[in-house]
């Protein structure tokens, strides 16, 4: 599944980042790389934007960007 499909409060592990070079670099400078654990903090109305947390970094991203991140939801 992809990151934007996660519900609020769910956590997941990143398995792949399928973005262009620029965005990928951006993601990794925020610590969003393969293998990290992600917590879904909240969504805006209509789920257009979402906030996630990695360790102590909170990141906001659009659903269109979240689509590019493959995750496996944790139990």
């Amino acid at each position, binding site marked *: 599944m992809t990151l934007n499909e996660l519900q609020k409060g769910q956590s997941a592990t990143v398995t792949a980042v399928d973005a262009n070079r620029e965005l990928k670099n*951006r993601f990794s400078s925020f610590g969003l790389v393969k293998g990290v654990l992600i917590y879904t903090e909240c969504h805006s109305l209509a789920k257009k934007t979402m906030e996630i947390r990695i360790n102590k970094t*909170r990141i*906001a991203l659009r659903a269109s960007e979240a689509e590019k991140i493959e995750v496996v939801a944790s139990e």
Partner: protein
Amino acid sequence: MSSASEKATETIKIALVGQPNVGKSALINSVGNARLKVGNFSGVTVKKEEVRFSREGYDFEITDLPGSYSLTDYTIEERVTKQYLDESDYDLILNVVDSTNIERNLYLTTELLSLNKKIVVALNMTDEAVKEGVQIDAQQLGKILGTPCVKTSAVEKTGIDDVIQAIINTYNRRENRFHIQFSEVFEEEITHIVSFLEEKKIKCKISLKALAIKLLREDRETYLRFHEEPIWTELQPIVNKAYQHLYLHYDTKDLDDIFNDEKSALAKGAVAETVKFNKEITQSFTDKIDALLMHQFVGLPIFLFMMWGLFQLTFEVGSIPMDWIDAFFALLIDGTKNFLGETELASVIADGAIAGVGAVVLFLPNIIILFLGIALLETTGYMSRVAFLLDGFFHKFGLHGKSFIPLVSGFGCSVPAYMAARTLKNDRDRLLTLFIIGFMSCGARLPIYVLFVGALFSEEQAGNILFLIYISGALIGVIAAKVLKMTVFKGDDEPFVMEMPKYRLPSFKLIWHTVSAQAMMYLRKAGTYILMASVLIWFASNYPKQVEMDQEYQAKVEQAQTEEAINTLNNELALYKLENSYLGIIGHASEPFFSPLGYDWRMAIALETGLAAKEVVVATLGVLYGLGEEHDEQSRGLIEKIRANISFPAGISFIVFVMIYLPCLAASMVFMREAGGPKYLGYLFVFTTATAWSLSFIAFNLTQMLT
């Protein structure tokens, strides 16, 4: 420093680098007795600041570079930082790190280490880290990174002397160790290349290891350098083989991926060895606030309420000192005229320069309050949340969540609005926002609306029409954004990926610094551009002189019996003079351009003087329709005159034109600077004039058909 003056002092040039929100500026401020020098990077609005001070017999020159998550060119900040680090002359890098979020911060540190420069790492926010139960073994971390790591706290002012000592020691260290250890696979390939380079006795400014890494990173310049050399034929197969090994091992052919992996692994490894987390991550202060402020239903209303509060404050509180400033300049104008008498010199100084500059300085209180509010929103970390909340709506029109603040400021005054657009990091988003700020009708246009709505509509309708004007202006603006996005600023949507920083209490010193710098910049503009423009407009409306007419009317006035007759004569003279001034000549010349919209030469001139300041439009109309200069929008007489002289369709068309055309001169100048050059002002002029003309044309013909 007495010892410093005896021997020639050495200057240590330091580049201060860190991720956003790690307290770089706060750290600089706590160094104490620092002389702050604010400098603007040419072309971009992002500032680097320089600080100089002396300690321990050395002169320190610190360049505070804008916060960057990594050394890429994703944002203006990162571009500025990367360029400075690559091209400028400095002795060492002081890397400031947020101790509470060390792993992500070390990602940047590993990139800095690959630059192969002398580095000192300041583990800042130690106080917060202690509270959060984060324990860092600074010495061990220093060993792993191969460079000194010092714990500091800018808030509690601890560790500052240690940092300075570490800087001096590192500066004096002769050889430059390259201590960073990549994974085994990686190191092996590096060693292969290094030993080949050693055999060939390659000489290089940076260490061979750094050179090898550059080769593996496909660094353009390094390749260009080697490409011309005979050694290339031998080097190429070695580098190629290294690639093959790496591709095989990492199961990807993307070098960025491989390097990002390496950097992350390095940061992770260093943290695992040196940092202990004594507390579980529990619901923090930030989480609790966010639960409310970022709530999907409550979040937006709370924000709107705060904005409403800010604008109330801006205009309510701001109007108090505005009255004083207004009175002060009125006094100054009268004083100048009394002192110099009724001469040309008095007129150019008082009516031209002082009046023009005064009109700009008048808005200083508003600007200070608005910027104080914005600075508070930014430093507390709330601004990022606002962008999050609004991005969904704005994205539909090709705008960015952060465009909101400048657009709303535009209803007050376009000048601070253009300046507020700096919060947008991406050039294209920023330019798009700058182009549509003018559509948000500023406060200075209100008198024109009030005048025309009063003249054309009944009193009961006036309020609604006024509201309609503002709303439709904003709507046209968003639609214009969409059109611009699809034509001029087309291209992929800028990704919206941003950090939501921790909530922090803002530092008074930092806020003061930001706000005062902005206020000073605004005043400086009033003293230069506006001064020049005011004198120019004064000249254009007063010359050429009509000496004969003056004498003729002088005689008539002397013969006139009643006060009323004198007034009429004076108005006639003023009208004649204006019509034959350079400004009047321009008005007549431009009449053909405006006549399809239903305007006569007087309305044309009014619009043209409105380019200087929208307030002038009403004053000009007053003069032109024969009422003398002392008229504002409340004057019944002017409303009557407008009603008598201007047809309903022409009036509507005039309102539409005023809504859309170029903002005042002050705002245009600020726009030019913020957008990055005169050519953008040219684009804005063409864009707004074309839009204003076409929409006014439609409005004119439509109302003519309907009435």
